[in-house]
């Protein structure tokens, strides 16, 4: 038992963090929210060059082999920088197609970052259907390549652009077995953890600088204790996310999903409250993380569904 990230995994996280810090993601996110995808696509290519999508693709299809722990590490960083786009959906499509006759057709493009894939259950909105190069729908008779998408609907997170997928399309494989969406849950959990960590960091910095009554507001115990609670929630979600990545047991992943998403949302509420009115504005960058925390809570498994999966196990 050695439940610690290896030095290579930590280096991978650090290099992704450095790359994303340099990429000015707030500007990319704001473009993306307006449907201007140019800078977002360029960033997607950089994420692919860093090897993120290849971590969901077997080596025979030009990937690095399916590596859930490294994917979790990567998605924590993607969440920390609020990177927009159908990231979860793309790696999930890769996991659904691996081992099918369609793998060779789609997986090398995903690994290389040339293909972006969105995915939705039939009748549910798909994330960024307008930006994705391929749109997949999970219909009762199997995975289909959707022939197109409907108009964009807004999300509570402006950077998440929701689109209906047009029905029908080419049938690519048989109905997906239960547990097929485990990777979607895991990467959403990791992304939410990253969102929560970023919200905490930004809020700690803010309350250390913001002065009222002649002292930093972060010296007040009421403020400290809210931040301590956010830290607690995130630090107990982290081992669940990494442990779930190791086991990939559906109940472990469900536990990680609900815990990480609720921790991120708790942190978002604290971040908003402790920033005060400035945090409530769209122009202040905190909003890019605040709104995502709420959206991820119900993406790929509501809290209720996840808790049911925990209770149903064993």
């Amino acid at each position, binding site marked *: 038992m050695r*439940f610690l*990230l290896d030095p290579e995994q930590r280096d991978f996280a650090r290099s992704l963090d450095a790359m994303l810090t340099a990429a000015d993601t707030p500007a990319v996110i704001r473009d993306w929210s307006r449907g201007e995808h140019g800078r977002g696509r360029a960033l997607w290519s950089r994420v692919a060059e860093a090897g993120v999508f290849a971590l969901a693709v077997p080596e025979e299809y030009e990937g690095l082999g399916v590596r859930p722990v490294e994917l979790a590490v990567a998605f924590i960083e993607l969440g920390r920088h609020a990177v927009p786009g159908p990231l979860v959906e793309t790696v999930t499509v890769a996991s659904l197609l691996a081992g099918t006759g369609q793998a060779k057709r789609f997986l090398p493009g995903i690994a290389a970052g040339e293909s972006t894939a969105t995915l939705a259950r039939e009748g549910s909105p798909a994330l960024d259907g307008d930006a994705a190069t391929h749109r997949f729908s999970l219909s009762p008779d199997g995975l289909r390549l959707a022939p197109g998408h409907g108009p964009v609907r807004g999300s509570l997170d402006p950077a998440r652009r929701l689109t209906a997928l047009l029905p029908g399309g080419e049938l690519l494989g048989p109905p997906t077995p239960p547990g097929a969406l485990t990777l979607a849950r895991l990467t959403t959990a990791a992304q939410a953890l990253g969102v929560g960590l970023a919200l905490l960091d930004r809020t700690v910095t803010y309350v250390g600088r913001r002065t009222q009554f002649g*002292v930093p507001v*972060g010296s007040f115990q009421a403020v400290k204790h809210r931040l301590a609670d956010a830290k*607690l929630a995130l630090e*107990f979600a982290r081992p669940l996310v990494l442990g779930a990545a190791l086991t990939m047991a559906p109940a472990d992943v469900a536990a990680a999903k609900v815990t990480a998403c609720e921790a991120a949302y708790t942190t978002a509420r604290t971040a908003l409250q402790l920033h005060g009115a400035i945090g409530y504005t769209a122009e202040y960058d905190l909003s890019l993380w605040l709104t995502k925390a709420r959206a991820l809570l119900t993406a790929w498994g509501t*809290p209720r569904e996840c*808790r049911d999966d925990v209770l149903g196990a064993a």
Partner: protein
Amino acid sequence: MDLGFTRAEEALRAEARAWLAAHVPAAPLPSLETGEGFAAHRAWEAELAADRWSVVDWPQRYGGRDAGLIGRLLFEEEYYAAGAPGRVGQNGVSLLAPTLIAHGTEEQRARVLPSMATGEVVWAQAWSEPEAGSDLASLRSRAVRADGGWLLSGQKTWSSRAAFADRAFGLFRSHPDAPRPHQGLTYVMFGLRSPGVTVRPVGRLDGRPAFAEIFLDEVFVPDEDVIGEPGQGWRIAMATAADERGLTLRSPGRFLASAERLRALWRERGSPDRAREKVADALIGARAYQLFTFAAASRYLSGEPLGPESSLNKVFWSEYDLALHENALDLLDGEGESADTDWAERYVFALAGPIYAGTNEIQRDIIAERLLGLPKGRR
């Protein structure tokens, strides 16, 4: 990164499981916080110790198995899953023993640890005083230099297990002129039946004497019962407190077992939907605590000291434990009020968790100031 265990660790787990299946008393022992129950729990410690199960991580020469921290965690998973009794020697094993191992002399270890391992000597803690609770460093009980030792005078309080225990350990002010309150304290072991000691048991909420006040009137303690250098007690005790809040006071195995008991109760009561979320959260919380502990243990074993992150641990387990027991009482409906259910005493015990070992308010201050780097302010 892996969550697998070595063959030796798995063998220890299997051996423990078999031993516990053969030895755990079929009926629960009487409450630990009664004279009769204390004696029964002490006898149980002797039974554990006879087959070297009382302190598996300790060196063999003191009664352990050299099973290491991981071995201890796995043993405790089996121990609590088997429904085995509470540990009467917990204060000594979790607080004093790590201090002796880190700061004591070999003579002290050889003298104190073996009888602690068998339950022959049960230790109580003597930290708090009437005017020194969260602000522990303001404590006033004195240690005055005497020929060959020290004379202890003053009052300690909230001393868990002291009503029935044999000896105690705590901090005393030996250098009253030291420039700051946490300087000039000395870490001392003393007998609870020594001349000059008066123990007054205090009933906790259910009336049982789970703790006591200790009055000391020129109690002589020989130099050999001082741990570390006189005047260095605060630093030594804080190292203990980090262990207490960290890995050793509350085993994940305990909460994994409690969560399963709650799930069983929920099913017995017809799996009511109103408790669904809480039961799921109990299972999730136990797993989170287990994995958090594995991560901390892995860091510790790779040479990183346990630091202020142990405050996260303490707040988590104490609030988790209380919520779990509140949920159990809720599930019992009208029976939840009854004092003779399996859950009642555990609930009363859990109520104290957020208070002792450093209140959760103090822990949150530590998290905010030392982990998040927020500026110090007035408490």
